């Protein structure tokens, strides 16, 4: 047997590694994505105070703590039978859109940016944030400034930008002042401006590039799965709230349900060789690692959201969405690299939403806590930047956590990422070509998901360094490639 | 690090056979000698003897010891002895510690275990001494003047006693005259002396005393400083009458057009806006009550000034703030009666012929509104059936005050008896739960009221009092017969609970003196320090501390005065240096420490400060301090942790 290990560097920090097994004839036997780390939040959340969950679970992921913070708060709203007052809801939603903006921006420029903005032949020493900043100094300046504005919004409402503290069952910690609103509006305006800039950059610098178009249409990066995401009443994507809609690989609605009920439609499969679990739609059951209309495997995240939605919620985003659909000729779009474009569209919607919410008169309302009932069970769901995020708690009468289950965005995508990797690997093996460019494609394939193997992996910021080692059956190193 | 340079000496005492009979003292010394930092260890038959002390001194000098542990008897026995000896040899006494291997080892254990424990105990104390610092006691001078707050009988007595011992006294009284409630009373139990007759001479004595300065119509505004050195700000309200000119002719009052309820008569009569509270008032002068006067601003009336021949009335008089320094303070702010308006079931104070005990005193008093005739407020009739209700508002944790007001049993008996004297054909009823007559001649007095005056005592509480025509109906019960009773009375007298006088809580706060939950000033210790407040240099007298009758108030006042005299007589105040201390580099001023201190020794601004003189060294604040900024001299955390480790060390203890 031969084995290819794609291990982000030293296999300890990658928190996600890819193992490819070949038979003696060099045919692909299997390829898996392994998450070699476990922190076990579900276990030690037990016995903790319910209201602490937004602050504890956000430590699952420092890249998207905002998502955990609010998924958790929403689960608590439900567990305490609380109605969130308008002012608190607006605070949360505004905060949340600012987060989506900031996170997507981060990926587009700092993470995916080097792949998208730099020529393919650029040296690996330059293929990073610094490279992008050097080539596009003005864009870099705008992005740094824009992100600072978004962080300012997060800090103003959340208390802290990374690991915010403001959400509580039934509402938020305290009311916002009118002075705060003024700051928010100014910041929001600059987010919208940056969104527009990014659209221009995308259409002028990225999309016209043939190699990018080839990627978008590459067969091995075309994965027909089901999709899941939150939509509002008008079937536009909503990051903070709404119903969970699942759409099949053929584009038909599988279900549209409130979070708690949707959760019951998701099963979890585990394998002993990884610390991440594999969710699937129970309507189809776990059919193993394969895509297609009969499989239970589905994907979440920007592309999935655009596939489950029928329109965007804001005008600029809608314009770009239409261009996107034109390009692919309709839905569902299965191109894994379309995640990048989808991310751009969402980022614009988020910016526009922040501005709209900042102008809502009730944002500064002083009633920020709903009445709490007896604690019980609750499910909270939001769309994290990387996809649907479920928090599910059972609280005891004292309001302590009895049970917690979390399905994080990248977990939903774990089977999909595994498959993308497998397809890429198959292509790699078939072509028998083990050069650096091809290797980078493997990497780009899973980077498109912006995988924050949240509870486990960390691939931010920038590229995930990959080494490929090919051994023979005796374990002798045959070939080693690094990007 | 002190311990690296430490040169500790260990002295193990045999105490004859007391220790050596059980503990292998040689072994203890031998083990001690092995402890790093111990440069000298020995054992001796009687360390406390002269030769023993000489041995200690010699060793300190010869071995240049920086710390000493004497393993001997309880520190309560000879800690002082050895510390003094060390001091004579030039070693700071606070570098000497005792390891108690007698009371807590040799006398209570036996066999090798005793020696092992002795070794551990000694080792533990060596660990402590290694962390000790040289300390010096703090010293401070004393301002030889006292402040007495409250001019009732307790305050008067305390002021006189202190002044007679040769110290200056400032006596502050809130109302225009001293005398307090005692001046309002008719006769006093159990002797039936005329209250004013025994009080007036004392008031005059105060007025004439060269060492007493009376500040009437004044209140304590602010107190700062600490024992021996208090600074007091006193607000003196203007009386608009110059006492040195006023000759008490009374013309001013005669022309004054204003009539307001007379406080001294508890509203049963009226007074003018310029008035003298009662004829014997001290200071002996009229006071113009600016709240009710028509004429001060704008000048509309001014009739009194016109008729005053002595030109004593001065409308330009202003409030004064006096600043005084005193060494000690006596609080004698007295009591008030619980308002009858709080007694829902007894008519909420709305029935005019339901009155309280002090009102009845005024009715009984020869100088009162009725000249001593008993006439009820509503219509001036002489009441023929009078009901006295004891425990009105007292002993009622559910609705009113949980405690016994202590004086009501006696004054009710007195009231009933005096009523019978005044209205021989009247009937008095007393509703009671228990009779508490524990005082000299008290029981006899109550018996006299029952037996000779045929006052009917009914054991049972009254449920409800209400007005029915010109009668006051009382629903009660006689629990002894098991029958409900109804009395249609002419007058009802409520023995209202005794409560602290208004303003007591505020004054207590200014002085950082604790109040109990019922608002009475709290003594430092209920049994052993009943005369002192927890704040050093503040003493308590009279009913401000709890319900008290006259003899008890006077006794406590004299006791407090004696404490003050002792304090003011000391040449210097010395204070043990083993107290709490703030590391200002670490203190964030969170203020958690301050309320821990029962002595008010901690103040907090940017950081906390410990007043070394006030701190008694309990260390509660240190344990409460979350950041570790508060420390305790010679009981630092690091020291204790080293002691703990020394106590538990597994290493062979050699037995």
């Amino acid at each position, binding site marked *: 047997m031969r084995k290819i290990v794609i291990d982000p560097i030293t296999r300890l920090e990658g928190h996600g590694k890819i193992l490819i097994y070949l038979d003696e004839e060099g045919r692909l036997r299997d390829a898996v994505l392994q998450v070699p780390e476990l922190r076990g939040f579900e276990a030690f959340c037990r016995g903790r105070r319910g209201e602490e969950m937004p602050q504890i679970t956000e430590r699952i992921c420092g890249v998207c703590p905002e998502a955990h913070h609010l998924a958790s708060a929403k689960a608590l709203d439900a567990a305490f039978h609380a109605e969130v007052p308008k002012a608190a809801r607006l605070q949360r939603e505004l905060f949340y859109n600012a987060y989506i903006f900031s996170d997507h921006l981060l990926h587009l420029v700092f993470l995916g940016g080097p792949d998208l903005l730099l020529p393919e032949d650029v040296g690996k020493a330059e293929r990073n944030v610094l490279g992008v900043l050097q080539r596009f100094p003005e864009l870099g300046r705008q992005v740094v400034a824009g992100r600072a504005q978004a962080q300012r919004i997060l800090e103003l409402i959340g208390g802290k930008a990374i690991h915010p503290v403001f959400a509580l069952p039934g509402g938020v910690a305290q009311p916002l002042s009118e002075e705060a609103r003024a700051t928010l509006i100014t910041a929001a305006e600059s987010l919208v401006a940056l969104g527009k800039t990014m659209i221009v950059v995308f259409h002028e610098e990225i999309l016209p590039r043939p190699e990018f178009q080839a990627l978008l249409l590459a067969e091995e990066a075309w994965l027909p799965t089901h999709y899941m995401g939150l939509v509002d009443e008008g079937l536009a994507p909503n990051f903070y709230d709404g119903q969970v809609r699942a759409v099949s690989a053929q584009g038909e609605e599988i279900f549209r349900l409130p979070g708690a009920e949707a959760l019951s439609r998701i099963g979890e499969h585990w394998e002993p060789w990884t610390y991440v679990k594999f969710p699937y739609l129970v309507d189809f059951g776990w059919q193993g690692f394969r895509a297609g209309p009969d499989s239970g495997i589905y994907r979440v995240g920007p592309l999935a959201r655009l596939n489950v939605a029928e329109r965007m919620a804001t005008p600029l985003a809608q314009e770009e969405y239409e261009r996107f659909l034109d390009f692919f000729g309709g839905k569902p779009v299965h191109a894994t690299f379309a995640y990048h474009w989808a991310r751009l569209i969402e980022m614009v919607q988020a910016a526009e939403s922040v501005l709209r919410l900042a102008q809502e008169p009730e944002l500064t309302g002083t009633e920020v806590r709903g009445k709490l009932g007896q604690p019980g069970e609750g499910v909270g769901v939001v769309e994290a930047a990387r996809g649907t995020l479920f928090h599910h708690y059972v609280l005891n009468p004292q309001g302590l956590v009895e049970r917690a289950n979390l399905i994080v965005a990248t977990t939903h995508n774990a089977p999909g990422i595994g498959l993308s990797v497998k397809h890429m690997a198959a292509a790699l093996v078939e072509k028998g070509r083990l050069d650096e460019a091809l290797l980078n494609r493997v990497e780009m394939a899973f980077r498109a998901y912006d995988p924050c193997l949240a509870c486990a992996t960390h691939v931010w910021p920038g590229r995930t360094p990959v080494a490929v080692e090919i051994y023979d059956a005796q374990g002798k190193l045959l070939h080693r490639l690094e990007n | 690090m002190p311990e690296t340079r430490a040169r500790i000496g260990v002295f193990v005492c045999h105490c004859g056979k007391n220790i050596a009979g059980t503990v292998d003292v040689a072994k203890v010394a031998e083990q001690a000698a092995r402890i790093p930092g111990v440069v000298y260890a020995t054992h001796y038959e009687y360390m406390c003897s002269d030769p023993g002390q000489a041995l200690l001194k010699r060793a300190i000098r010869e071995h240049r010891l920086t710390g000493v542990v004497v393993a001997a008897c309880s520190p309560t026995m000879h800690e002082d002895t050895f510390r003094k000896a060390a001091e004579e040899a030039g070693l700071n006494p606070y570098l000497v510690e005792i390891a108690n291997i007698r009371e807590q080892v040799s006398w209570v254990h036996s066999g090798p275990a005793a020696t092992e424990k002795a070794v551990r105990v000694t080792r533990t104390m060596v660990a402590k001494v290694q962390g000790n610092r040289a300390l010096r006691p703090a010293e401070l001078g004393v301002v030889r003047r006292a402040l007495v707050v409250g001019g009732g009988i307790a305050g008067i007595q305390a002021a006189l006693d202190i002044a007679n011992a040769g110290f200056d006294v400032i006596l502050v009284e809130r109302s225009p005259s001293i005398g307090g409630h005692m001046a309002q009373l008719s006769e006093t139990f159990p002797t039936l002396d005329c209250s004013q007759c025994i009080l007036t001479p004392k008031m005059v004595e105060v007025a004439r005393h060269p060492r007493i300065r009376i500040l009437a119509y004044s209140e304590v505004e602010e107190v700062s400083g600490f024992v021996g050195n208090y600074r007091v700000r006193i607000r003196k309200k203007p009386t608009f009458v110059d006492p040195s000119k006023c000759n008490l002719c009374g013309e001013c009052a005669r022309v004054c057009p204003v009539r307001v309820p007379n406080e001294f008569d508890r509203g049963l009569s009226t007074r003018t806006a310029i008035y003298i509270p009662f004829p014997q008032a001290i200071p002996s002068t009229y006071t113009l009550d600016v709240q009710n006067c028509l004429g001060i601003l704008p000048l509309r009336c001014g009739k009194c000034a016109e008729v005053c021949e002595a030109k004593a009335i001065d409308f330009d008089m202003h409030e004064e703030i006096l600043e005084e320094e005193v060494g000690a303070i006596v609080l004698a702010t007295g009591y008030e009666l619980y308002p009858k308006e709080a007694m829902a*079931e007894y008519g909420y104070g709305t029935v005019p012929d339901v009155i309280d005990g002090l009102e009845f005193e005024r009715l009984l008093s020869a100088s009162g509104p009725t000249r001593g005739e008993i006439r009820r407020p509503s219509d001036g009739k002489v009441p023929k059936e009078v009901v006295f209700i004891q*425990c009105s508002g007292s*002993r*009622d*944790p*559910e*609705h*009113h005050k949980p405690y016994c007001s202590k004086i009501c049993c006696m004054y009710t008996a007195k009231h009933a008896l005096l009523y019978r004297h005044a209205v021989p054909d009247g009937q008095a009823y007393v509703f009671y*739960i228990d009779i508490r007559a524990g005082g000299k001649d008290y029981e006899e007095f109550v018996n006299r009221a029952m037996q000779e005056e045929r006052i009917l005592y009914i*054991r*049972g*509480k*009254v*449920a*409800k009092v209400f007005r029915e025509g010109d009668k006051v109906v009382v*629903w*009660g*019960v*006689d*629990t002894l017969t*098991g*029958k*409900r*009773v109804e009395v249609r009375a002419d007058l009802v007298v409520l023995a209202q609970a005794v409560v602290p006088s208004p303003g007591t809580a505020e004054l207590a706060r200014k002085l950082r003196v604790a109040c109990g939950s019922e608002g009475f000033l709290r003594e430092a210790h209920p049994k052993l320090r009943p005369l002192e407040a927890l704040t050093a240099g503040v003493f308590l007298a009279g009913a401000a501390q709890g319900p008290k009758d006259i003899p008890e108030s006077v006794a406590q006042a004299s006791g407090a005065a004696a404490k003050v005299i002792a304090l003011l007589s000391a040449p210097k105040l010395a204070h043990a240096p083993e107290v709490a201390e703030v590391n200002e580099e670490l203190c964030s001023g969170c203020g958690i420490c301050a309320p821990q201190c029962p002595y008010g020794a901690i103040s907090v601004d940017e950081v906390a400060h410990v007043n070394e003189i006030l701190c008694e060294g309990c260390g509660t604040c240190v344990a409460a301090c979350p950041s570790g900024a508060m420390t305790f001299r010679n009981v630092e955390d690091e020291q204790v942790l080293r002691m703990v480790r020394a106590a538990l060390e597994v290493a062979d203890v050699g037995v």
Partner: protein
Amino acid sequence: MAAELRLSRENLNAPFVRKVEELSGQNVFACYQCGKCSASCLFAEHMDLLPNQVVRLVQLGDEGVMGARAPWVCAACLACSVRCPRGVDVARIMEALRQLGLRRGLTPVELRLTPDLPQIALVGAMRKVTP
């Protein structure tokens, strides 16, 4: 002398006392026998024992109080309970005695039914004095 009431540790700690305390949720020893409950009770004249005496007998552990009429006369008007200076809910003690009686099969009260009695009176009475 043959005493009417023999006091002993056993009596004072009798299950009866504990049962009354449990059922009523009251500590009968909080009562200091001031009689305010009795003074408040407008039905005391129809009772054989005053309310405070009922409490006293419970304090003494005298199970004979079970034979008393007083608890059955009590109208549960709660005047005693709101006025008690010690916060003892005397009405609950009365209820406890009624309950104990009813559970032992005592029904010492005769219902005097007349046609004009409204439902509210009937249900109220039956809930208090019938099992």
